[in-house]
């Protein structure tokens, strides 16, 4: 079994009547999801707004528990109430808005909050704070006030806060949606290094197609179900299918696809500028 495994996972949101408290409407946000994620993988989840990505993600650290089916994090069933804190320590979560996640008045205090809460002895907390700030490239800011940082820096502090809890897995729910291009690059770089150097399993939810081309595996969600699963190259070679799911492909991939449709001999699923340039040079 991988670090995260879902079997027939389903989740319903209930809308209650304001007058008598009866259930008025049931919305199935996640529907019959089966997946198995191996330790150390970099996973990306794509899907349009309302496709169920965030609901699925919230199951991974037990913010939500399944209506039907089961989700295991490192072989622990998330429905077992007694295991809640263990699960949240194994799987950390980073959200979209950095301003909603930072509570400390100084960067290092904020990062130390998690391990302190876990009862880690003080000298070890400082070690963890230092190590995780190093890992995200923010050690120079340890004594700064978080509210003077840029969006990308704040988001890296939020990531360090999760890293300090030594999770096996980090779930990032659109961590770059509110950042400028530079901030986006910084955050992705930090996440990538955690995955490559520390072997942390990463689950990245994003609307930016360019961010997923280095992932080991991409899942596409639609109406609560997993509808596509494969390597970025496999997924992005299906331009029309993705467009049906309200998604698109990186601009480079789209241009390559259009050129191919116009009769040029170019392979499917081109992901980077270099690949396209190489392919075009071969045609000269």
């Amino acid at each position, binding site marked *: 079994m991988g670090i995260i495994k879902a079997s027939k996972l389903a989740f319903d949101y209930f809308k209650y009547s304001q007058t008598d408290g009866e259930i008025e409407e049931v919305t199935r946000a996640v529907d019959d999801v089966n997946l198995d994620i191996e330790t150390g993988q970099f996973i990306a989840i794509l899907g349009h707004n309302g496709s169920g990505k965030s609901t699925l993600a919230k199951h991974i650290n037990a913010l939500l528990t399944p209506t039907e089916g089961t989700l295991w994090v490192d072989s622990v069933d998330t429905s077992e109430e007694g295991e809640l804190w263990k699960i949240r320590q194994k799987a950390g979560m980073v959200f979209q808005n950095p301003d909603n996640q930072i509570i400390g008045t100084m960067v290092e205090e904020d990062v130390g909050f998690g391990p302190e809460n876990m009862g880690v002895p003080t000298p070890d907390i400082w070690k963890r704070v230092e190590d995780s700030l190093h890992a995200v490239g923010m050690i120079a800011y340890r004594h700064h006030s978080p509210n003077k940082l840029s969006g990308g820096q704040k988001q890296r502090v939020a990531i360090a806060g999760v890293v300090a809890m030594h999770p096996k897995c980090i779930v990032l729910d659109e961590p770059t*949606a509110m950042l*400028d291009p530079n901030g986006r690059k910084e955050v992705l770089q930090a996440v990538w290094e955690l995955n490559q150097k520390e072997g942390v399993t990463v689950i990245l939810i994003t*609307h930016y197609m360019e961010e997923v081309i280095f992932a080991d595996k991409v899942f596409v969600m639609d109406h609560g179900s997993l509808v596509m699963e494969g390597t970025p190259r496999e997924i992005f070679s299906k331009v029309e299918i993705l467009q049906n799911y*309200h998604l698109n492909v990186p601009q480079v991939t789209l241009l390559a696809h259009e050129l191919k449709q116009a009769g040029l001999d170019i392979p499917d699923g081109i992901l980077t500028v270099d690949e396209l340039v190489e392919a075009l040079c071969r045609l000269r």
Partner: protein
Amino acid sequence: MSITLEHVTYIYSPETVYEMRALTDVSLNIPDGQFLGIIGHTGSGKSTLIQQFNGLIKPTAGRVLYNGQDIWAENYNLKELRSQVGLVFQYPEHQLFEVDVLSDVCFGPKNQGLTEEKAKEQAVIALDQAGLGEEFFKKSPFELSGGQKRRAAIAGVLAMNPKVLILDEPTAGLDPRGRDEILSQIAYLHKVRGITIVLVSHSMEDIANHVDRIIVMNNGKIAYDDAPKQVFGHYQELEKMGLAAPSITYIMNALKKRGFDIDTTATTVEEAKETILNALDRKVENHD
């Protein structure tokens, strides 16, 4: 008829320890009917700049003119200015508060002193132009999807019949389809209403596809003010400012470096496709 800034400087909390210079000697003119894009990294002064356009903040030095009149002159009607220059903030859907979509959109025009009936009339037009049909009027704003909420919020500003519509990152946090929808809706508004649009965005692709002119802000100053093709030609300088050109620009420049005899100014997939096909055809002809 236009917005003009003359040597505008803006300093936050002047003469305190928190003093921060956000704009330095910015001069520009936005003629009527233009579709203008503003780009710049976080903290470059974009948001401070657009707040000058409708008099939300007063310049520390310099003048802001609307249709030739100084908006900070005595007796100038700022309230009137703000109904003519509409500002849609980031994440405008956080500002939806009424019980249903129609009432929310009516709030602006009612506040302008219009009768219930007239306000409703303008709201219905605005909702229609923002792409929300009658089926949405009685829905709670909380029942809408992200893209729909944002359109409802834009309709709220449109209902006041502004001559200028400023949008601060209108596509942030939306999925690709939502982004395309909002942008085409804005382009459509520009067309049917003929109003001036100022679009602030981090997304170079969004900007490249729609605007007539780009202003690049860096450290509170205007770094570039030109047509998109000219601005993106400076892609290396843009990177130094924490920005980037559309990925298409990189492809075109890389091809040129590899010996393709091509014009590198394409910024959209469509243009790039034409340019590349032409370049390859010409090669074929040369071989014949």
